[in-house]
């Protein structure tokens, strides 16, 4: 149960806001680089990594601040998509099941967990309604992008 009527845009300390803004700034750099015709993968990785680092620090230091957690979930989802794409590319190039340094599903699941937590923490008030909807939507998206659980036995029919 979240804190009732919690102002979702409140930060515990000014330092929390600063970390959040630094993460947003890095995310913008990532977006700007990604919008290029030929983005530099290293720069992309660097900006996304910096964004993840700022948001993670913020979430770990100020766990009650919702916006940094929401953006942390976004960054994890983005990284999950990136890793999933890399895995797919590797499969296409090598014709076999690709391997990735990071399991995309674990990133999606972590992102879904953060979105779920936000949905639990955010109040039902007017100020949190948007964030609640976004968090629930993003949680569903993250879970949807995970690999389906393989069937291990015959399906029983009545």
């Amino acid at each position, binding site marked *: 149960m979240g804190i009732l009527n919690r102002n979702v845009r409140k930060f515990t*300390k*000014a330092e929390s806001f600063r970390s959040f803004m*630094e993460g947003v700034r890095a995310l913008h750099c990532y977006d700007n680089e990604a919008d290029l015709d030929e983005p530099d993968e290293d720069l992309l990785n660097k900006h996304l990594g910096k964004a993840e680092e700022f948001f993670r620090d913020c979430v770990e230091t100020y766990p009650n601040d919702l916006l940094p957690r929401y953006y942390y979930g976004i960054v994890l989802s983005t990284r999950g998509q990136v890793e999933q794409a890399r895995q797919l590319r590797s499969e296409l190039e090598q014709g076999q099941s690709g391997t990735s340094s990071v399991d995309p599903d674990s990133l999606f699941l972590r992102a879904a967990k953060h979105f779920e937590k936000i949905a639990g923490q955010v109040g039902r008030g007017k100020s949190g309604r948007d964030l609640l909807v976004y968090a629930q939507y993003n949680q569903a998206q993250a879970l949807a992008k995970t690999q389906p659980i393989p069937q291990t036995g015959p399906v029983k029919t009545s």
Partner: protein
Amino acid sequence: MHHPAIRKFWHRAAICTILLATGCTDKATPAKEKFEPSPTRTRHVTFVQWTDPHVFDAGKGRHAEGVREEELDNWAAFHWAVIETNRMALVEHRDINFVAITGDFGLENVNLPPRGAFAAEGCPNPNPDKGPQKEGPINRIELAEAATRVARELDALVVKRVYLVPGNNDLCNENPKDLHRWAEFVFELQTDLKNLYQARHPNVPANAQNNPNEDKADKGKGKDDQELDKVEVLDLTDSLGRLCNTKPPDPRVTALFPNGCPPRQVAPVINGIHLLGLNSAFFKKHADSDQAAADQPISDEIDRVSRSLQSESAYLLFTHIPDLSDPFRPPKVPSESSWYLEDDTLKKNQVREKWKNKILGKPQVLGVFAGHFHISDRTLYPHNFAKLTSDDTTAAKFWLAPPLAEKYQFRSPPDKTARGMLLVSVNADGDTRVSGEESEIVQPSALWYATADQKTAVTGDEKLAQARAAELDGEWEKAATAYGTVLADPTVDARTRTTAYNGYWHAHKMTSKWWWESRVARWFYLDGLPVLYSVGIVAAIVLAFALLVAPLYVGIRRKIPYRGRALISATVQLTPNAPDKEFAARLRAEGEEIKRLLTQEKESWAAGHITLLAPASSSFDSLVSSIPKVEKVDVSALVKFVVGLLQTFRWTAQTGVAVFPPDQPTVPSTPTSADCVVPDAEVSAYAVLQWGWIVRNSWHRTLPVGKDRAALRHLARELAELIVGEGFV
């Protein structure tokens, strides 16, 4: 042959006689120890001396209601004497061996009943001064009634031995031939006391009696005084025995003993000290026609006492009239003794020499206790009358008790009278103390009579107040000392002394408690509470301050919330050539950048709040400066002040920047280059967010300078984010 111990006793007695003669006494100091009875009962007696109650001849020389008033007052003093004596015995636990009453009940104003063939007798003229304005004394009463009244008083005494000697006002016209008056009174008094006791104890045989003649203490019965169960009155002059056994016997006295005269009385002995009575009731000068009749009895009385003295015993002598000149004598009357001995006129000095050499001068006579005087000078009593005699031995051995009666003192306020009694403690070694206390370090003093409702301030009240104040402060040692000072003061009256005594014991008891003897516990007792009070008061002040100021502070912060809109004041240049203007510009630019980023993130609500404003612009300054003066009034300065004041009470970000040059500059500085933001330097900045004088937050950051000026930008961005971020806290 003297026993060695006896020889030592006489030696010490002689020494003490000298001490008394020279008035050498210990200096007064506060009493510190409990007034314990002497550890040895041998040769130590304590007694109280009452004198001159004048209850039957009160009102002499008084007018109208004054006559009855004096009678009531004298009886009140007599009641007081009984109660005060009982109080000393019961409350102060003094071991009082006996009460001595040295005459002047005023029996001359009492009617004697018919005895056998003799008709009733009344003194024809007991008050020669009677006149139009001097209706006193009071009406005469019968002897039986007089004895009954006195018996009722004495029956209430807890001290069971009462010894009497007659006074000059107990004989009609001080005539020695009227001694039967006194003897009959003593007889009636003894009979009444026996009857009173018998009425309370019907099962006790009527002839059962104490035997005060017996020196019980000498027989090792230590509690005999307490075991006495009825008051026994004894005439130390043995008037009854002498008048009955003399030749020819007094017919009125023999009429009292139809079965034969009682045996001659033996002088009582208390704790080894013999008590003798000297009948001085007729020692004053008589009219020429009567003097001859008195001379022989005076000589006989002195002979009788002289014969009673034995060389190996110690004696206390009780009499009424002292061998001192009357302090009431008119100024031009030559000083002469109140005793008019026959040889005073014959100049042969036989009787007086006999008195001095065979009685007073004997070392076994420890003291002579008298009364008779009614002077209101308290300093005279009990032993400060050297001016009343030229004889050193007389001055040393006589002790004078103040009268109980109001006689001649009715014009003085209560605290200016000298009425009361003596409490006397006597050691058989001759060290006689007449005082309110038995300690060796206490000066002699009398116990002054005070009515229960006496309200006038008396000596010692101030010290009592000091002692009481010390008590209230819990300073029990100080209280005990103050009370002890009152007790040692010879001029305080009985009421004050009683209060002081009780207070002293209470204080003494408190100082015996364990927590008083423990210094730590005493500190807590004395200072713990004040310290606690102080701590409490300080805590209350701090709490009140916190309760008042904290809400005020919080209230101001709540009432004036910070939403990210602040005025960036002019950046302070902390080091020379620090890029203050550039830093301020970057600060505002970073503020706009934050706004832009939030807008892009669809956080328009947040972005709408963020505004980092520049201070009053130069155009505004120039506009204000252009305001003309109005009659020497600098309006522009006034407007600037008002604007400055208004700007003070809004959210402001005070900033400052400093650049610290590198230890080893990589690029040699040129004289023309003023830029200090060089590689390896350090740029440092602070920001203080405040409203008026209330600081909300402050930050200080330092970054090393790289190859470009990015450090300045990063520092401005970080501080801008913190200043803006405070609006979302």
